[in-house]
Structure formats: structure tokens, C-alpha cells
């Protein structure tokens, strides 16, 4: 066997650990909270896919943003996302985070969630069925295998642009930056 094949096999246990035990953070962000309890209880059991909800962002792996995002909710979402340890994956649930959905002309909802935090995949529907969540999870497994689910790497590389977008929306961002960026008015992370 050649060296590349050996390295691929050595990386595989790590990928299997990422794939088959996704811990979802318990945060009910919007409308879609209606279809999450059916998928984690006994009828459409999500634990056979390895998904269980956990209490804090420090223990979580996967962030499901269920439904529309308002301007006031985006701050807890960004702070929760920044507290999760890497590797982390984000999935947008419903048609509202994609392009605003039904509330496209509202003054208080975020139209494209992609501009503020990186998103790995979307689930369409209003509301999607619980089976749609499981199809999305199996797609996420294929992406992890091919190393294409790297939203967290994109966040680390382009952090300057994400933070500039967040600043343009809010005027002032209160928390210090997660990765070091060269900017005169930002304090460096201590």
C-alpha cells in the first residue's frame, strides 16, 4: 500500500467520530421549533443517527438554525457559534434563512444568513418534515467524507469580512474579535 492510502485510513477514524455523533445545541430560534421535538422523540428517532441535544455550546457540534432570524436574535446566534469548538457545522432549516422567505419585506428580519455566519447546507420547506432533517444529515456525512463541509475554516480565513458585515448591521459590536485581525479600533483578544 502506498503512503497516501495509509494517511487516508488514519484520517478515517477522526471523520467517523465527526459524522456519527453530531451533538445539536438546544436553541429554539424561530418557527421551526415545532418540528424538532417530533424528530428527537420516539416516532422519528434521531438518536439512531447519533444526534442528541445538549445544553451548552461548548459541548456541541452542529447548529440547526430553525426558521427565520430577527435582528435581535442574530447576536445570540453569533455568540453561540463563536463559542462552539471546531470542527463545527451549521445547517439552515426552512426557506427563511435562504433569502428572507415569506418576510422578505420586513424591517426586522435578516434576509441572507450567509453574510454573517458560514452555513454548510440548507433544508427547503415551510416546515420541512422530520424525514427531511435525516436526509440532510446523510448529505452532511457525504460532505464530511469528501472534506467539503468546511464552513469553520472559511470563518477563520475570512473573519475580517464577516466581522465587517456584522459591524455594518449593528453599528458597534460589543464582544472582542475571535481571531486576530489588524484593525485600529478593535481590542486584541486577551
Amino acid at each position, binding site marked *: 500500500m502506498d503512503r497516501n492510502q495509509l494517511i487516508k485510513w488514519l484520517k478515517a477514524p477522526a471523520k467517523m467520530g465527526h459524522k456519527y455523533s453530531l451533538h445539536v*445545541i*438546544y*436553541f*429554539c*430560534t*424561530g*418557527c421551526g*421549533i*415545532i*418540528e424538532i*421535538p*417530533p424528530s428527537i*422523540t*420516539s*416516532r422519528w428517532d434521531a438518536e439512531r443517527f447519533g444526534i442528541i441535544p445538549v*445544553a451548552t*455550546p461548548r459541548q456541541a457540534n452542529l447548529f440547526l438554525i430553525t426558521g*427565520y432570524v*430577527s435582528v*435581535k*436574535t442574530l447576536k*445570540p446566534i453569533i455568540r*453561540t457559534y463563536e463559542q462552539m469548538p471546531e470542527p463545527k457545522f451549521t445547517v439552515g432549516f426552512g426557506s427563511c434563512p435562504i433569502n428572507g422567505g*415569506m*418576510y422578505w*419585506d*420586513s*424591517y*426586522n*428580519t435578516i434576509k441572507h444568513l450567509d453574510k454573517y455566519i458560514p452555513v454548510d447546507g440548507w433544508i427547503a420547506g*415551510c*416546515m420541512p*418534515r422530520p424525514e427531511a432533517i435525516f436526509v440532510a444529515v446523510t448529505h452532511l456525512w457525504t460532505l464530511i467524507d469528501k472534506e467539503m463541509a468546511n464552513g469553520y475554516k472559511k470563518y477563520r480565513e475570512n473573519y475580517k469580512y464577516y466581522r465587517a458585515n456584522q459591524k455594518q448591521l449593528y453599528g458597534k459590536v460589543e464582544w472582542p474579535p475571535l481571531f486576530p485581525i489588524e484593525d485600529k479600533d478593535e481590542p486584541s483578544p486577551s
Partner: protein
Amino acid sequence: MRELELYFGPQHLGMVGNFSITLKVEGDRILEATANPGYLHRGFEKLMELRNWIQNFPMVCRINVVEPDSMEMVYSMAVEKLAGIEVPERAHYIRSVCLELARVGSHLFGLWAYANMLGFDTVAQWAMYHRDLILDLFEELTGGRVYHIYIWPGGVRRDFPEGFKEKIVKTLHSIGSCVPDYDATFFNNRIFYERAKDIGKITREEAKEMGATGQVLRATGMKYDIRRVEPYAAYNQVPWDVPTRKDGDAFSRIWVIRDEMIESVYMIFKLIDKMPDGEVYNKVPNPFKWNIPKGEAYVRCESSRGELGLYLVSNGEDKPYRAHFRTPSYPHGLTVLEKALKNASIADVGNIMISLYVVAPEIDR
């Protein structure tokens, strides 16, 4: 001891829905609580002024995500009152059956939330499973599990399919035969009694002063139900009872919810027996050119949480001029919660909040 300010914030294991409370705490005792809504505000009433009367239907059912049928009902009643549309007899019975099925489903969701928070995981899984059986019924009738868009001005959209009445009866029998199991595991359990008795007590005078309706008022002994006060749909055609309890604490409120579920199931059986034949729909004019004459109306109905009302103003055009929803969670979540949390301990905050039966999207709209 010093004072601390804590945030029982949106990302919390004891919080159902996107809502936050700011607590001022000394040791373990809460001195003052401030509710902090606004995480789900979409500006619904402004968006409704930019869309036609018919285009507002898919918008209206998304205000209360747990029980969307009562929102559609109150909007249909308001539009029918302004435009002077009559509804056939069979449609009244079908509307009542749909509303009672939605009420049972919503109470089962509330039971999941409460039992999960107290730690009774078995009962939570049973309740969610039985709610899924009811959502299967809705999916066969209307095509969608959660958002139905079935009740609209003039009646309902389509008639019951073949054999649907027998399916309803069979599903409700399979849920009702599990009631002794629920009683033995949760409602008659000594641990539930110790954890919920005398917690979050609201007397009758305080509830009347703060504008509370629904379970918060019925748990203090007052038989106030809008289905009795001004009957709408087919509620005055069958005999039924309004369940109450005496004490006004969290224990009484959960028992009132259980009694209401059983009463709704019996009501559905009686309504199905008595349903007449006939049409289900009166035609409305061309929806793209439908102008409703000038006027205003305030209608109300009883959702699973209390009195739900709508104040609708029309200017003679094809769009509403002003629509304002009076949702039952508005006084419960903003005024009653701040009163009930005084001098409680931190461990009881989730208990009190979920037993007051507050749904966060209803407050923010």
C-alpha cells in the same frame, strides 16, 4: 448578601421558545423579574397592510406556531363580519371538529414541554407520539402537518374524504385508552405534587386585575370560557362542561389542561354524531378584485391559551387598513409572569413559566 443580575436567556435548557427574562437575585431568591421579548418580532401587522385579503391567509397562521387553526378561525370570522358572508351549516361543524383537534394537539405539546422540564421523560415521549397521530389526521385532510390553511371566509376548503370520520374515532380511542397510564405515571405522582403545589400562586382578584384569561383564570375557580359567553361555530349545539379547579397554582393549571383534553375528546364524538349533510363552502368574489366595504370589527374566540381577539379596520380597498391581534400570551407573559416570579427561587423559574402556558411568537407577532 449582594444583588446579582442574571439572564435567563434565549439559549437555555429550561426555555421553550425564544424569550428571555432578566432576574435580580439575592442568594437563591428572586427580587425582581423583567420580561424581555422581541426576539421573534417580524412586524406582522405592517406586512398585512401590504397584501391582499386572500394573500394574508398563509401569513396569519404563522403567528402561533403550536396551534395555527384558531388564528385562521378568528381572521375568517372578522372578514365574514365585515363583508357579510354566510357560512353553511355543515361547515360550522367541520370547523368545530378541526378546532377541537388542534386544541388537543396543542395541549399535548404543552405537556411535552412541562414534563420534559420537570424530568419525566417517559410521559414527554408518549405525549409527542400521540400528537403525531393527530398531525397525521390533519395531513390527510388538508395536506400539511403543521400549517393547514383550511378554514377561510365562506366555509372550509374541502369536504371530509371517505372514511375519515371512522379514522378520527379510531385515533381518539387509541389516545384515550392511554389516559390511565398518564394518570398513574404523571398526574397522580407524588413527585409532581411536591414540585408543583403552591408554586406560582395567583389569586382570583389578581388574575382579574391583570387581564388574564384561559387556564390562569380557570384554575382559580371562575368558569369563564368564550365558547360559552358568545358561542361561535357549532358550540351551542352539543352539551359540554367547563372544567375548573380551586387553588390557582401550577398544580391546578396542569390539572385543568388534563380535564380540558378529555372534555374536547368527548365533544368531538358528539359533534361527529350530529353532523348534517350539505355544502361546505359559499363562494366569495374574485379574490384579485375583492373590495370589502368600509367598517371595523372586533371578534374573539377561545384558543387553547385564552381569549384571542382581532381588531380589523377596512377602508374600502382590497387590502386591510389595520389589523391588530389581541393574543392571550401578551398579558400572561408580560404582566402575570413578573408578578408570579416575585420571591420564587431560581430553580422554579422554568416551572412557573411553562405552567403559565406562554408561547413566545404570540407576544412578539
